[in-house]
């Protein structure tokens, strides 16, 4: 395989991100690094959501639920063993002595979230469209109630605090790169084509031999895995967890990122996630200075509605920037008016 233009573009992008992270770790303040860390985590969440929601057309709002699972599982695993005894008295014996490092704990969080997604997916994925959306919203509420009530293991509504701050920007952007790599390779494979076919027309896809139940479940579980990882990274960045942090507002924010980026566009979702994180962080001082609480949410909601009315397909529709795409997927100029309608991917 010869070196092509998109390889060069990817290499430059990777080098730029590595340089940026190295610079941030060396020079930026703790607050600035935290904001950047959140931008990275949101980018990963938005990419995985764009994969399962945008590309496969499973309109799920369940990402915060899977983040909750991943975050709590990872935090309980890494929690200092000497404090587990009195903070989390109901933990089983073998778990109370564990004190894992970040990577295995994150992985375990992701796997646990994916497992929950598979279990919940069996009934829930049979629903379509907005039924699925509301059922996954229900999943958030059910998990929140469970965590609130299992206070011997999770400290309930009080929240789990004093989680070691293991997450740094290298971990976040490393996971982000892995997430993008996996989703990207899947998108441009036969699997991605099957998922896209399910989104466009489920019955036609089934007629063409796409195993739709299995494919949907797999896409859902993959999205949940990265949501779980995101939750775990979040927990070890913020050092505290409450069930309330994984709210429906968060689900909404993630959906906005996907819609603004263009459903199914991975790079679009990442760009939108970073932009929205910085935008809301920049507006926060304004919000406090004027005393206008809720301003950030209002701006984002107006942005979303304007986007849906004026450019419903989002920044990139389902496609990726041409520069990063391998040659066969690059857009050719339409030669005939009938080709203009064709959607790029």
């Amino acid at each position, binding site marked *: 395989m010869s070196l092509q233009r998109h390889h060069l573009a990817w290499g430059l992008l990777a080098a730029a991100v590595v340089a940026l992270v190295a610079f941030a770790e060396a020079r930026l303040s703790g607050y600035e690094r935290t904001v950047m860390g959140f931008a990275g985590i949101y980018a990963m969440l938005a990419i995985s959501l764009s994969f399962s929601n945008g590309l496969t057309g499973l309109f799920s709002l369940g990402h915060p639920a899977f983040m909750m699972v991943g975050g709590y599982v990872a935090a309980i695993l890494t929690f200092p063993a000497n404090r587990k005894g009195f903070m989390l008295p109901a933990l089983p014996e073998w778990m109370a002595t564990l004190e894992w490092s970040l990577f295995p704990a994150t992985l375990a969080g992701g796997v646990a979230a994916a497992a929950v997604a598979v279990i919940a997916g069996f009934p829930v994925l*049979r*629903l379509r469209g907005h039924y699925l959306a509301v059922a996954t919203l229900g999943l958030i509420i059910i998990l929140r*109630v469970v965590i609130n009530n299992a206070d011997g293991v999770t400290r309930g509504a009080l929240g789990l605090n004093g989680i070691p701050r293991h997450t740094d920007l290298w971990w976040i952007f490393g996971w982000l790169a892995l997430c993008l790599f996996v989703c990207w390779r899947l998108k441009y494979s036969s699997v991605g084509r099957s998922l896209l076919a399910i989104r466009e027309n489920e019955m036609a896809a089934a007629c063409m031999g796409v195993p739709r139940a299995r494919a949907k479940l797999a896409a859902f579980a993959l999205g949940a895995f990265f949501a779980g990882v995101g939750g775990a990274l979040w927990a070890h960045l913020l050092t505290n967890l409450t069930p309330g942090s994984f709210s429906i*507002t968060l689900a*909404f924010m993630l959906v906005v990122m996907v819609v603004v980026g263009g459903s199914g566009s991975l790079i679009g979702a990442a760009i939108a996630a970073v932009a929205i994180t910085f935008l809301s962080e920049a507006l926060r001082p304004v919000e406090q200075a004027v005393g206008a609480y*809720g301003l950030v949410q209002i701006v984002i909601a107006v942005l*979303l509605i304007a986007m849906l009315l004026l450019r419903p397909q989002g920044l990139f529709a389902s496609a990726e920037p041409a520069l990063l795409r391998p040659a066969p997927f690059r857009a050719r100029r339409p030669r005939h008016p009938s080709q203009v309608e064709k959607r790029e991917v």
Partner: protein
Amino acid sequence: MTSSYLLQQVLNGLVLGSVYALAAVGFSMIYGIVRLINFAHGDVLMVGAFTAFGILLVFGFPLWAAVLAVLTIGAILAMLIDLVAFRPQRNAPQVNGFITSLGVSILMQNLGILLLSGRPRPFNLPDWLRSNLEIAGARMTVLEVVTVVITLVVLAGLTLFVRGTRLGIGMRATAENPTAARLMGIRVNRAIATAFALGGALAGLAGLLYAGRAGQIHPLMGFVPGLKAFVAAVIGGVGSLVGAVLGGYLLGFAEVLFVGLMPPAYGSYRDAFVFGLLILILLIMPNGLMGRAAEERA
């Protein structure tokens, strides 16, 4: 378990179910006509509660004025939302409308926080509404009796309207097939606006009654009843008015029985129970009690 205890639970279920039914009918009507899950429905309910707060407690007008006001404000607000947010994208995919309604909901909640502050305010109805009545050993407040009566009257009126009037028939025709309805000379947009107005009016009324039960109001209060209205509508079969009423009462009874029969320690699982029930019902009867089977076309 004495019979008066049981009667008390039945009455509680009836009252809670009435509020859910009011909200669910509007939800179902809007879905039936434009296939839109309107997430902002609960926030119309919230605005209704705040309107009632202003009319009753700030200006001190009587109850009938408050009822009139919440009906009007709810109707106008819902029509406005339709006009600004949903009408421009009638032909877009269904999911877009749903996402838009999420956006409208977040917008309204935060405008509420911005303009009215996020702190809960006490919502105390006049004393005569809160006084108790004895019915065969069970107790109900006047407000609860009023709630049930208003709900039944309004729902009966709505049924007559949809069945009998020209506009009602136009609405049903639009729900059946918008293109064919337009070809028959029905003003489709007006029919849709009517559905929004009726749904909004009922949501506003539900807001008044819900706030009266809860005893306090705040800008985020619409979310939970909005979701429960959705659950009720789904149980009944989205799009069916009779189904929505049935679903509302069923949900009300199920919730009251869950809290009343389970040991108190499980009371906090109430919302988890409601959504567990929703998922279960969607699995066993994807079209709800009264819904029609949706055909799948390639």
